[in-house]
C-alpha cells in the first residue's frame, strides 16, 4: 500500500484547515478561534460594520481586556492610558453588538489574551487561532497553530472566519540535555535568538522539540513559543503530548465531555512523522545554557549572565555594527564588561512571557524571606485573574508583598508603555517581558530582559545578579 509522504506537524495542521489552495504557495485557512482585545478589537469590529458586513461565526470569537486597562487595585474604565476609556467603550459596544463572549473588567476569567486562551481551553491542540497581537504564537505551547495578525486581517477573519496565509518554511529547533539550576524556558529562547539572530526564524514555522522541551511543563512551553516572534518566526509550536492532554482536562471552554475521547484521539496524531522534512534544522545543547540577560535593544543582544558585553568593533558588517553602537548608546552599558553588578532601579515580573502560576512560584521561592534592595521599584502583575486567585490561595501574594513587590490586577501593565502607567523616575529595569526595544517600557527606559528568577535575584541585590548565587548562598 502506498504510504502518504511523511508530514511535519505544521503540514498536518495546514491540511486540516485548508479551505482552498489559492496558488502562489498560499492557502485559505479556516480559523478556529479569533481572540480580540481592547487595543485593536474595537477597531476591527468597527471596520467590519463600516463595510456593511457582520461576524461570520461570533461563537468562534472571544474578547478580553488586557492592553489598555490599568492593573492597580480598584481599577475602572478611567485608565491612565490617555484615550483609554474610548478604546474600552468602543470594544465593549462592538463585541456586545456582534454577540462576542468577552471577559470584561471584574470577570473572573479576565487576563492577558495569550495567558487566558489556553487557561480557559478556548485554545486547544490542533486549532488555528489568531489575534491582533504579535505574541499570539505563545499558544503554540499547547500544540495550537497560532499567530499574530493586523487589524485589516482581523476584519477579514471576523467577516469570513478564514485567512489567506502564505506557506511558511519548516524549521525544527531541537533542545537536548538537562537544563542547569535556575535556567528556564526564557533562557532557552533568549539563547537561541542570541545564537541565530532576531531574524533567524524569518518566514518559518518552528517546531520546538527534543528532550529539554519534552521535560518542560505546558506553561514553560508557552514561554518558549511566546518569543518565537522575537526570533522573526511566523509562529512556534510544541507537539501535544501526555502533558498537553492533562493540561487540557477540565478547562471550561474545552471539548464537551461527549467529544473529549475523539478530541484526545485526534490530538495524539498531532506530531511530525518519522522522516518528515524540515527546511532548517537547529540543534542546541540545553545543558550549556546559562541564565540570559539582554544588553541592547533587540532580543538577539543577549548574553549569558557570566559573560561580558560584546564590542561593536568585533562586528564586520557596517549596518549591524551601526545597530550595535546605537543600542549601546541607548542602554548605556559598557562593552567588555559583564552585566552583573549593573545597578537597576526597577524590576518587573509579568507579561504573556512570564506571568503564569509557575513563573510566580519560581520567583516567590527566591523572594521568600528576602526583600528588594532599597530604591528598587518592584512590581508583579499576574497574567490572568485566575493566576492571581491561585497565587493568593497559595500565599504567594504575601511573599511578593513582604519582599517589597507591588501586587497587581491582571493585565499587560508595564510590559509596554502607552503614555499612562510608568516606572516613575526609574530608568534601568530588569524585566521578565519579551521586548527590550527603545522606549518600550517608557521613554528612555532601558529594559534588560531575563527570566523571573533572574529578575527576582536582581531586585533583591539592586543590581543585575545571577539567580544561582542566591540559591547556593
Amino acid at each position, binding site marked *: 500500500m502506498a504510504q502518504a509522504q511523511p508530514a511535519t506537524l505544521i503540514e498536518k495542521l495546514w491540511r486540516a484547515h485548508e479551505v482552498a489552495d489559492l496558488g502562489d504557495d498560499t492557502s485559505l485557512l479556516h480559523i478556529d478561534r479569533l481572540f480580540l482585545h481592547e487595543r485593536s478589537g474595537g477597531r476591527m469590529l468597527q471596520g467590519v460594520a463600516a463595510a456593511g458586513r457582520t461576524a461570520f461565526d461570533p461563537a468562534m470569537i472571544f474578547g478580553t481586556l488586557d492592553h489598555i486597562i490599568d492593573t492597580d487595585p480598584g481599577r475602572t474604565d478611567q485608565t491612565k492610558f490617555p484615550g483609554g476609556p474610548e478604546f474600552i467603550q468602543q470594544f465593549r459596544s462592538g463585541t456586545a453588538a456582534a454577540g462576542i463572549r468577552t471577559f470584561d473588567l471584574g470577570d473572573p476569567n479576565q487576563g492577558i489574551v495569550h495567558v487566558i486562551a489556553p487557561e480557559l481551553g478556548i485554545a486547544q491542540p490542533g486549532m488555528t487561532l489568531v489575534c491582533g497581537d504579535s505574541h499570539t504564537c505563545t499558544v503554540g505551547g499547547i500544540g495550537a497553530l497560532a499567530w499574530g495578525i493586523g487589524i485589516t486581517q482581523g476584519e477579514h477573519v471576523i467577516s469570513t472566519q478564514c485567512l489567506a496565509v502564505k506557506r511558511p518554511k519548516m524549521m525544527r529547533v531541537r533542545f537536548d540535555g538537562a537544563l542547569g539550576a535556575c535556567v528556564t524556558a526564557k533562557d532557552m529562547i533568549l539563547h537561541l535568538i542570541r545564537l541565530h539572530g532576531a531574524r533567524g526564524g524569518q518566514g518559518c514555522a518552528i517546531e520546538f522539540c527534543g528532550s529539554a522541551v519534552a521535560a518542560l511543563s505546558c506553561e514553560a512551553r508557552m514561554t518558549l513559543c511566546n518569543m518565537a516572534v522575537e526570533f522573526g518566526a511566523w509562529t512556534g509550536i510544541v507537539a501535544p503530548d501526555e502533558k498537553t492532554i492533562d493540561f487540557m482536562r477540565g478547562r*471550561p471552554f474545552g471539548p464537551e465531555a461527549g467529544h473529549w475521547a475523539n478530541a484526545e484521539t485526534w490530538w495524539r496524531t498531532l506530531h511530525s512523522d518519522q522522516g518528515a522534512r524540515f527546511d532548517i534544522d537547529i540543534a542546541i545543547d540545553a545543558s550549556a545554557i546559562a541564565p540570559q540577560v539582554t544588553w541592547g535593544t533587540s532580543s538577539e543582544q543577549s548574553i549569558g549572565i557570566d559573560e561580558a558585553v560584546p564590542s561593536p568593533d568585533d562586528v564586520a558588517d557596517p549596518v549591524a555594527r551601526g545597530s550595535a553602537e546605537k543600542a549601546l548608546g541607548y542602554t548605556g552599558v559598557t562593552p567588555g564588561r559583564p552585566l552583573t553588578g549593573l545597578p537597576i532601579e526597577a524590576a518587573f515580573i509579568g507579561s504573556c512571557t512570564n506571568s503564569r502560576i509557575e513563573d510566580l512560584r519560581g520567583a516567590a521561592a527566591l523572594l521568600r524571606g528576602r526583600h528588594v534592595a532599597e530604591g528598587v521599584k518592584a512590581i508583579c502583575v499576574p497574567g490572568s485573574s485566575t493566576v492571581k486567585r491561585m497565587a493568593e490561595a497559595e500565599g504567594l501574594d504575601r511573599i511578593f508583598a513582604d519582599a517589597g513587590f507591588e501586587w497587581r490586577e491582571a493585565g499587560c501593565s508595564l510590559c509596554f508603555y502607552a503614555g499612562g502607567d510608568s516606572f516613575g523616575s526609574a530608568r534601568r529595569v530588569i524585566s521578565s517581558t519579551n521586548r527590550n526595544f527603545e522606549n518600550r517600557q517608557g521613554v528612555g527606559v532601558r529594559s534588560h530582559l531575563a527570566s523571573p528568577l533572574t529578575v527576582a535575584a536582581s531586585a533583591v541585590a539592586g543590581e543585575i545578579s545571577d539567580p544561582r548565587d542566591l540559591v547556593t548562598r
Partner: protein
Amino acid sequence: MEPFVHLKGVAAPLPIDNVDTDAIIPSRETQSVSRSGYGEKLFANWRYLPGTREINADFVLNREPFAQAQLLVGGRNFGCGSSREAAVWALSQFGIRCVIAPSFGTIFRNNCIRNGLLPVTLPIEVIEPLLSDLQACVGQAIVEIDLQACTVTGPDGAVHRFEIGALDREMLLSGADEIAITLQKRGLIEAFRNMDRTQRPWVYQDSQIWAEDARETGT
C-alpha cells in the same frame, strides 16, 4: 485601497537593522481609535527631541530632500515587533508608499500589502550600496519602482529585479478588497465547515453551551 503600479520619488536611507513597529509609531502615539492623523507621529521618538514636538534636525526625515520621501530604504528585519497596523498607517500618511529592505517582520509586511504600501525585498548586497548612495547624493536621491516589471531603479541608474508573491502583487496592482474576494468563496467555506464539523465537532460547540459550562465549573 489605492492601487500601486509605479512610483518615482525621493528615497530616504535608514541604515539600521531591526527597526521595530514601536520605533515606527510609538505606543503612546496611538491613543486615538481613529485611523487617521498618524503622519506626524511617524518615528516620533527619533523625529522629535525627547518629550517634545521640537524637530530633531539630525533625523533623516527632517532633512531635505528626505522630508519629501515617498520611499524608505531600511536594514534587515524592518517592521519587526508588535502587530500594530498604525505603523503602516503612519508611513502611508507621511507619504511613504514603498519600503525597500533586506527582510521584513511578517505581520508588518502583511499589513503593508493590505494598505497599498509596497514592501520590496532586495539582498543586503544591493541595499548597502543603495544606502550609501542615498546618504551621499543629496538632491537626487530618486528611486523608481515598477511593480508590473518588478524592478527598482537606483539613483545611479542601476536596475534591480525584485521578487514578490503573485497574489500580493495582484492585490497591490488592483487595489482589490481581499474580504470581498474571500466572500465570493462562501460556498467553499461552508462546505469545508460542514465536513470539518463531522471530523472535529468539539471545535464548533456554540457559545451558549460554553457559557453554561463556564458557570458550572465556576471559573
